[in-house]
């Protein structure tokens, strides 16, 4: 066992084990892709013989754990070293020329193998791209799109307005909740054991709810309140609360301490200190981020419409389903103009608030 005074480098060992196992598996798959029949893996094979694959993966990981351990004892440099080594070791590693760094070569090899395997898995093929039938179809679609049917313009505009209002209401509804909760998600304000516990729980919840895409929220709410703009609006509200709390709390964390000390030294209580020392520093950045969020919500509301969240996205999916390309062309044009307008307006507002 390593008798050095360094802590047992567990994170490094876990990383190296997984890295090596991944690398070997990729190598086998790449061999298969190049025609070595013993390694000719397919999706069907994987699904049917899953237990074999699982057993083999575990075995491979076990073997690579031993390799990682040996590498560590022998002092070979591995990618895990580069990520998790002690500062001293990192300095030593960075002093070498890059071409003499084994860990870098390992990363390069695994990266290249990943590209090879990705090409196989995504069924990428130049042939399909240049297929005559396919090209003709694409041409038909394109010429339809480029001759928009402007009879649809009134409906497209009405539903675009719906999208903008969905985005607006979801942003506005998210503001009060996010404003209140952001203070509890800001580390510089949450000192002391109880406060830190609240902070940790809130952050965990936030990360959880932000990792659920608005598209999934929209699916949930279309079941809950039925298909339509209301479902889309609720989905965006939930997502906006989480991301506004993140923006807001980062702004609070960047607030300078001087004014806080200044106000505290007058004998002000905690609420007064936040109101007089923190709030004046954050209003403008808050407004800027909120406008940006509205802009983002307009784009997201369009996408959410595709799964029944109302607005212009719903219209788009209807006409796309019937392959009515001139109508789709009109809708796409309206979406492009609106996204561009919102983007420009919000950039302008944010610039003005700096």
């Amino acid at each position, binding site marked *: 066992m390593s008798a050095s005074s360094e802590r047992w480098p567990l994170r490094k060992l876990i990383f190296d084990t997984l890295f090596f196992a991944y690398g070997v598996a990729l190598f086998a798959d790449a061999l298969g892709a190049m025609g070595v029949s013993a390694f000719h893996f397919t999706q069907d094979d994987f699904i049917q013989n899953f237990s074999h694959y699982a057993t083999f993966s575990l075995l491979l990981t076990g073997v690579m754990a031993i390799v990682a351990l040996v590498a560590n004892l022998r002092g070979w440099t591995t990618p895990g070293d580069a990520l998790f080594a002690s500062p001293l070791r990192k300095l030593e590693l960075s002093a070498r020329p890059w071409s003499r760094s084994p860990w870098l070569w390992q990363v390069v090899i695994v990266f290249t193998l990943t590209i090879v395997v990705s090409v196989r898995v995504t069924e990428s093929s130049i042939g399909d791209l240049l297929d005559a039938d396919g090209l003709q179809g694409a041409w038909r679609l394109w010429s339809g799109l480029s001759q928009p049917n402007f009879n649809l313009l009134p409906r497209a505009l009405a539903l675009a307005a719906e999208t903008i209002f969905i985005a607006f209401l979801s942003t506005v509804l998210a503001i009060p909740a996010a404003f209140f909760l952001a203070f509890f998600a800001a580390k510089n304000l949450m000192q002391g054991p109880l406060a830190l516990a609240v902070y940790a729980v809130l952050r965990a919840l936030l990360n959880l709810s932000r990792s659920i895409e608005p598209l999934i929220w929209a699916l949930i709410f279309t079941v809950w309140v039925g298909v339509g703009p209301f479902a889309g609006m609720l989905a965006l509200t939930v997502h906006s609360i989480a991301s506004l709390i993140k923006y807001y709390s980062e702004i609070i964390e960047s607030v300078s301490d*001087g*004014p806080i*000390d*200044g*106000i*505290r*030294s*007058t*004998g*002000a*209580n905690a*609420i*007064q200190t936040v*109101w*007089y*020392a923190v709030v*004046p*520093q954050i*209003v403008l950045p808050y407004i800027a981020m909120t406008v940006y969020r509205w802009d983002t919500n307009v784009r997201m509301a369009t996408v959410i419409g595709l799964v029944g969240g109302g607005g212009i996205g719903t219209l788009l999916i209807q006409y796309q389903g019937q392959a009515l390309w001139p109508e789709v062309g009109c809708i796409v044009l309206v979406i492009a103009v609106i996204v561009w307008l919102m983007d420009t307006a919000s950039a302008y507002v944010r610039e003005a608030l700096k």
Partner: protein
Amino acid sequence: MSASGSPLLNVRSLGKTYPNGTKALSDVSFSVDAGEFLVVIGLSGSGKTTLLRCLNRLVDPSYGEIDFAGRRIETLQGAEVRSVRQDMAMIFQQFNLVPRLSALTNVLTGQLAHQPTWKSLLGLHSSTEREAALEFLKLVGIADKARVRCDQLSGGQQQRVAIARALYQKPKLLLADEPVASLDPATSHSVMDYLRKANRELGITVICNLHYLSLVREYATRVIALKEGRLVFEGRPEEIDRAWFQRIYGEEARDVGIQ
């Protein structure tokens, strides 16, 4: 009210060890009578800031006792700490005003401790309060800047607003942590003059951290010196001769003011 004869502030065996293990203050004892202008000197890192922040409890002392205005204050909590801070105003090297608020509003924050929270949230101030705050801006000579946002004022002007805010607290004691360290010499003198004015004309006791001995000689009525967190000197400013100077600041030190 403290009984006559007992000092305004009495610090006994005060110590502070930061969570990272730094012993910023060790066993510091001194007392301050009402009306004094006490200056604290010492090398950078000797614990001057920590000392002042322990007094108004922006930092919690690790051990020791502090009597202020007849009251033991080192273990007070919550509202009682805030009432102590109300009587013990502070000004800072970096001014620590709220940059986006006007000079007048910054001065008005000096009375937050006397306001109900709901009222301060609404930003309501009576016209008498405004006039009183303006009086203090006049006292430090920048009443004409009352409506100007503090981030548009020069350093010297900001420090004067900070003094006005401190005075508007109507404190018994004023703590000044290197109030002129980021100002030029001329501005430094004008700011120090306002502190002396507060001391002499308003009868406010002052404890001030300073770097330059020339200023110490000009303004202090008494001096204490810290070295590595310990009190190594206590006396009148003119008692700091070359020998003392080198004991406080180290053998290598040169003072521009000592001849």
